[in-house]
């Protein structure tokens, strides 16, 4: 039960990251075009953000790792999408006015809008490993399986967004969908945490 839930959450995080990344291209196009360098900027920012996220997520897992904290990352990730929904256009407009070269323009714009939410989403992966790992012997297996699940999530998030979501919904609606997924995941982790607490009151950490 516990394992299945965490795998589902890791899957959802992978799904949300790629959903968000693909929308990034769509949102930047009206200001910076859809040239290869716009995609280059987005991928650069996402990779950078994920690497920072992995580092901080791993760090964060050293201190009193718990399902509540794990859920907290999801909730903060969800909330960090809200400014993107409401203010990204103003940010892009601002950058567009000051930076003529669409390469650096898109890089700066993507950094301002996508870096922070993606860092937070990136924290989920190492934290999942921490929550799920039982022993050192099996830690490699646990980590491998988690990467498998979350990367499958990314693959499905990519294909769903590019093949279907953009046909069914507006960009902001898809962002709200991503918000909801992350938010529900956070609540799930909380629920799971309190369930475990009531079942086993002595257990303080995961």
């Amino acid at each position, binding site marked *: 039960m516990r394992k299945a839930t965490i795998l589902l959450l890791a899957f959802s995080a992978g799904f949300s990251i790629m959903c968000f990344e693909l929308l990034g291209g769509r949102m930047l196009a009206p*200001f*910076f075009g859809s040239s290869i360098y716009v995609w280059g900027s987005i991928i650069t920012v996402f990779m950078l953000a994920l690497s920072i996220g992995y580092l901080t997520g791993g760090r964060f897992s050293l201190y009193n790792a718990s399902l509540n904290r794990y859920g907290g990352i999801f909730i903060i990730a969800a909330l960090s999408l809200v400014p993107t929904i409401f203010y990204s256009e103003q940010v892009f407009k601002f950058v567009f006015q000051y930076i003529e070269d669409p390469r650096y323009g898109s890089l700066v714009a993507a950094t301002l809008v996508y870096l922070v939410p993606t860092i937070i989403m990136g924290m989920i992966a190492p934290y999942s490993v921490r929550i799920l790992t039982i022993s050192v012997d099996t830690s490699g297996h646990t980590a491998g399986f988690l990467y498998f699940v979350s990367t499958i999530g990314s693959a499905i998030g990519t294909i769903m967004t590019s093949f279907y979501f953009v046909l069914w919904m*507006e960009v902001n609606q898809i962002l709200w969908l991503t918000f909801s997924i992350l938010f529900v995941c956070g609540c799930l982790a909380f629920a799971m945490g309190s369930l475990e607490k009531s079942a086993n009151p002595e257990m303080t950490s995961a």
Partner: protein
Amino acid sequence: MNKIFKTLLVALLIGQIAHIEAKQIAKERSIYRNVVIVEEGRERCMRFETRRRQITNQACIDLKEPNKLVFEYAHGVLAGYALKPQPKRILIIGLGGGVLSNVMHEISPEAEITSVDIDPVVVEMAKEYFNYQENDKVKTEIKDGRVFVKRALLKNEKYDWIILDAFNGDYIPEHLMSKEFLSEVKGLLDDDGLLSANTFSNSKLYDYESATYQHVFGDLQIFKAPTKGNRVIFACNCEAFKVFPQYSPELKATLIKYQVDVDRVWRRISDKVDWDINSEILTDQYSPANLLKQN
């Protein structure tokens, strides 16, 4: 992430293997694609190398009769001269071989013509193989069309004739089809400025696209190419655009040189609304043009 790269790699490999018909006389790599020049019979064409069966020519010229306008839609675009007999500032988004720019510079040498194309290699090849002429009246900007338009708006630039010709590739630039983009284009037009857009006339996209143009510009006049699946949408930055003016004898005489049969062209221009006017419109938030085109 890795998935995307792998797909791209496979696509590239297949592209290399695919056999290209017609005689290829040149090929250049750009950051977007391989641009090839082929000769078939008496025509020389520019193509974007593709793994698909269906090949779209970006530009063609007749080697024996260099004045002849090969593309039907180009005949349609030139009908715009009935509305703008003496254009002052022309903006062409999507250069291709530069054929339209050359012809329009010949017809109206006084006009300032700016062409915008995203791909520098296309511009080079236009010069080399299609005799695309640049001079103090004719200029080229290598930019994404949307970016150019937004910058031009900031600079308060105005044009009296804008030609949108960025849609004959395999992939539609979706950000050049939204309500917001068309509003920006409208903002670049003088009062009574004219827009001619070369677009598609089939697939599910037809309703969406037509409804979007109508939403932004109101009345439309549409030229449908007789054999190819193109059309040219005429719209203007004006109160009403109910009738498309008849051609003048002078215009007829001018266009004959390019083998444009004005009677044939005018017969195919109509204001008929043959799309679903309740269709959703394309916006920056919702622009799945490529997916709609496949349906």
